[in-house]
């Protein structure tokens, strides 16, 4: 099993532990900044999609469809090579962050759109009747209500963006997976396959598992609450 039980291989991992932590740090940085960009793009496009103005909605639709239907790996390669061959290379980390943000922006946009559309129409009309302008209506009335719908899938997006940093490998990044791979194939460090993959998998698992469990539990409890209040709504409707 290529060194799973060899003390020598584990020792190698321990000696180079800094390398793995550096990889984790790079992964965390690209995930964090990518998420920030994704949030900006996503909220903007989510608002576009629900604005009721056709051109804006079409722009959001095209963006979401195009990005969601092509692989992240392809987008990242495209961006990286297009920049590199035209002589404007931004560096691997920045390119990675940009493409992660662009890709997940499309998913965040869908999450935000669904959250806004889940708010009852009466809330929009009530806000309008009270003389709220568009920004006031959105940021004071609608978004605070949709946030509970938005947050659980958003946590899932954090997990996904964290895992998707592994795409940086194809452009030669320094994220956790790439560093693990160059560690096990490196000349002075090579050979310790099993321990290295185990450690890197464990690091991913330790970050992602709590988050994804949180997301799924949150979603279940939200559904239960929605079911209860939804049932109430229906009953009142029927009475009315």
């Amino acid at each position, binding site marked *: 099993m290529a060194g799973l039980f060899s003390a020598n291989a584990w020792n190698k991992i321990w000696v180079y532990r800094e390398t793995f932590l550096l990889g984790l740090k790079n992964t965390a940085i690209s995930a964090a900044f990518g998420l920030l960009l994704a949030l900006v793009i996503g909220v903007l496009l989510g608002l576009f999609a629900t604005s009721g103005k056709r051109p804006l909605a079409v722009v959001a639709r095209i963006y979401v469809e195009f990005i969601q239907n092509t692989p992240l790996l392809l987008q990242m390669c495209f961006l990286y090579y297009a920049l590199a061959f035209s002589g404007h290379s931004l560096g691997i980390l920045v390119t990675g962050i940009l493409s992660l943000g662009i890709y997940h922006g499309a998913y965040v946009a869908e999450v935000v759109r669904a959250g806004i559309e889940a708010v009852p129409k009466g809330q929009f009309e009530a806000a309008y009747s009270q003389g709220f302008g568009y920004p006031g209506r959105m940021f004071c009335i609608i978004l605070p209500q949709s946030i509970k719908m938005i947050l659980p899938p958003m946590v899932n997006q954090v997990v996904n963006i964290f895992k998707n940093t592994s795409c940086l490998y194809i452009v030669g990044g320094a994220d956790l997976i790439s560093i693990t791979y160059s560690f096990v194939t490196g000349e002075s460090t090579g050979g310790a396959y099993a321990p290295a993959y185990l450690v890197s*998998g464990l690091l991913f698992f330790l970050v992602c598992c709590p988050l994804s469990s949180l997301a799924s539990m949150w979603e279940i409890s939200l559904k239960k609450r929605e079911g209860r209040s939804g049932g109430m709504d229906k009953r009142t409707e029927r009475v009315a």
Partner: protein
Amino acid sequence: METIRGSIAIITNKAVLLYLLKGVAFTVIIALVAVVIGLLFGSVLALVRNYCNSGKTRIFKWLAVAYIEIFRNTPLLLWIFICLVFCPCPGFLERKLFGLSSAEVKLLFKTSVALILFTSSVIAEIVRGGLNSVAQRQFEAGHSQGFGIVQIMVYIILPQAYRNIVPTLLSQVITTIKDSSYLANVATIELMARIKKILSSAQKYNGLGTVNVSDVFVLFGFACLIYFAINFTISFFVRKLQKKKSDTVSVGRRAEA
């Protein structure tokens, strides 16, 4: 202008185009195989995770939970690397097949195993969602008619569960087609890997002796279009199915009211 003409010459080159289209075929086949096997394996995992609750069988439940959670919370690329080293390749596959060299067949097998293992864990959760959407009273009805647990599953629960998850499963096909591009990281023979390979030797085909930025745009743009065409078609059907489903549900609700 000249560079663009050169780049377009790359994909209008018959040999290159055929090479890429074969890559497209491999992408689709790999994804479909992964989803089909993933559906079988994932169903078993979901059933075990959901219904092995009593006494001794509980150990299987925890194994299924561990499998699903481990694969869901680690990146696919890690599993591709792991399978490259640890996955044994059966001897009969170490030969030329589908016009690939024996090394390529071996690589294809190992990376596909990684994709299948990964996809199974995702599909297991989808199937579990489908199982949970079947009402508890369906079990009771089955029991009252004298069905055994296996019969209840095969004749009553699973058909309903599968029907409920058809749109989600089709979306998973899209995700798997996108995920199969990860296989390009280790130069398996699907579309993305072939695009990269053509790009790295573009100077041979565009007649200019150098790789230009227009080659990047033409080649990756071509790949984008293909992925988009395949996935958009599927997502079109998904939306149609979902619309139909929500229509029937609301009709049902109206009828109930």
